């Protein structure tokens, strides 16, 4: 009977699909070779907007042309963890690559949602971009740091470190800090209280930080919520100074606030990691892109020109003008005065400290 046969065929296909979707635990992946010609579609879940545009223009489009792989870039800005959880639960992982912040990567690792890099691919990437840029699960991307940005047309003197930002007597002026920045403001409070940046982690003294935050709170006029807002309040002179993301501050300066003072001193640096979800539909394409990524420093340089976030490959800096190269978070000048944020702490403290932060902010 035709209907019966069609049904059987459909069931067989569904079964094969399900088996394909569920197969491949990380040991298996880690042993198999990561080279070989990719095909089909690479689905790269990323941040959307300018970020995705820059990524396509500098890397994904050239990669697609050279490899013949079709690339799709669904957006999931800051939503990688809950979305991948949902995809894994439904047994329908859709992404081959994602680039979450390192804290979110820690959470994903703890929940067993990521695939370890194949050993040969990891070795290849370490050789190309150095072991500090490669982990068991991924390779660094989109490195950035916080900065203190200050408009000298409004502020009499501009603070250039957390201590100075907290010193409202010597550095008067309307202030802004990140309203959701619990893991940003706790380290700075400790530094303002005298803890050297490199000693803030791995165990920040949260109680001490909140005491110090109590001191600055009455002087914070705007707790910014979005990157756009962090720019707009400085542009419109709603505030004189702000602790914000470096890319946003430089963009503001390049768009006409020529005098804006931007300091990296004592600030945290952070990065994203390009990682592969467990049960990714097309891991071959993911491996191929990672290989491409660590062997195309010029593409990395173009990416930095577009969006001012760092890439894994230090050689990218050689293809940039001195001005641009010295300003990004991964430049030797800036890495000297900044320190890396501890993603493990953020992942583990998140629930308690973020809730405490939200309570504190509304008190």
């Amino acid at each position, binding site marked *: 009977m035709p209907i019966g046969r069609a049904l059987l065929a459909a069931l067989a296909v569904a079964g094969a699909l399900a088996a394909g979707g569920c197969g491949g635990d990380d040991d298996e992946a880690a042993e198999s070779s990561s080279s070989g010609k990719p095909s089909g579609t690479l689905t790269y879940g990323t941040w959307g907007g300018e970020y995705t545009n820059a990524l396509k223009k500098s890397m994904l489009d050239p990669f697609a042309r050279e490899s013949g792989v079709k690339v799709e870039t669904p957006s999931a800005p800051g939503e990688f963890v809950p979305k991948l959880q949902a995809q894994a639960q439904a047994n329908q992982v859709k992404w081959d690559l994602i680039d979450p912040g390192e804290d979110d990567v820690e959470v994903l690792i703890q929940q067993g949602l990521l695939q370890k890099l194949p050993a040969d691919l990891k070795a290849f990437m370490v050789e190309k971009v150095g072991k500090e840029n490669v982990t068991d699960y991924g390779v660094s991307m989109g490195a950035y740091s916080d900065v203190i940005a200050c408009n000298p047309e409004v502020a009499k003197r501009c603070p250039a470190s957390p201590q100075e930002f907290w010193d409202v007597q010597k550095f008067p002026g309307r202030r802004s800090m990140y309203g959701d920045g619990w893991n940003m403001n706790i380290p700075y409070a400790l530094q303002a209280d005298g803890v050297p940046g490199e000693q803030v982690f791995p165990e920040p003294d949260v109680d001490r930080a909140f005491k110090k935050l109590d001191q600055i709170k009455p002087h914070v006029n705007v707790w910014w919520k979005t990157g756009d807002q962090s720019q707009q309040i400085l542009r419109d002179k709603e505030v004189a100074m702000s602790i914000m993301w470096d890319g946003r501050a430089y963009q503001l300066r390049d768009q006409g606030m020529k005098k804006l003072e931007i300091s990296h001193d004592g600030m945290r640096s952070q990065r994203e990691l390009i990682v592969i979800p467990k049960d990714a539909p097309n891991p071959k394409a993911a491996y191929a892109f990672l290989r491409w990524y660590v062997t195309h420093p010029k593409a990395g340089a173009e990416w930095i020109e577009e969006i001012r976030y760092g890439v894994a490959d230090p050689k990218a800096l050689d293809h940039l003008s001195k001005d641009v190269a010295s300003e990004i978070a991964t430049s030797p000048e800036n890495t000297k005065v900044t320190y890396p944020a501890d993603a493990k702490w953020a992942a583990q403290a998140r629930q308690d400290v973020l809730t405490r932060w939200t309570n504190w902010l*509304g008190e």
Partner: protein
Amino acid sequence: MKRWRPHAPAAVGVALLAPVAVLLAVVFVWPFLRIFWMAVSEPTLGIDNFRTFFDTPAYVRAMVTTLRVSAFVTVLAVVLGTMIAWELRASRSRIVRALLWSAVLFPLWESVVVRNYAFTILLQREGLLNDALLSLGVIDGPLGILYTETGVTIGMLYTMLPFAILPLYASFASIDLDLLRAAEGLGASRLRAFFSVVVPLSVSSLLAAAAIVFVVALGFYITPILLGGAQTPFIATVIDQQIYNIFNLPLAAASSTVLFLAALAILAIAWRAVGFERIQRTVA
């Protein structure tokens, strides 16, 4: 030949209702039950998620802020909306009506983001409002309206006014203006005539307008973020944080349930206060 009857048999009523009932069941009742079930069953069976919600001051505060601001916006929108809708109905000047209609409809055509940024430009310290008031000498220093609850209230009111005006206008349009003239002829003042004739005839529309504004206001997300302060988040922001920052879906489900039940309770109280019979009478 079949005899004509004023009332269709019950079966016809059920059949006519079926599409809406099915739609509501699929897109509303079923998802809500799933959310409620998640709130009471994950990670363990019980009311732990609700306890967490009520034990966290920031969450309770966000809920109270949301309900308070939404209620305030509702009152303002209905009062102002009544005035505007009545002017739309009663004004004899074409120009006034055309201007009012465009003022009512424009907010509906703007994108939410553009609208909120427009208010940012108007309300900020060096914005139009403060500049105007300062140069007129009304105030000595700039008013801090932006990034406060007042800023959020203004932004929400502007967005919600058309939602109040349109149902009220529909109701006012069916009122015979001669009734007011009769009332005035019998000695009532303009205001008295309005409250004794128009309001009773429009109770159901007033209530519908209030309900629409209130329910939509509860779900506001981007306006409180862009015009308000991080210190006083709305519940939608808190739920977003529970999902995307602390990855606690069951807690977010519990928070949504609390919001839903609170809204339902307030609507029920309002319904009762106006009186069900009165509504039925005006509807019938």
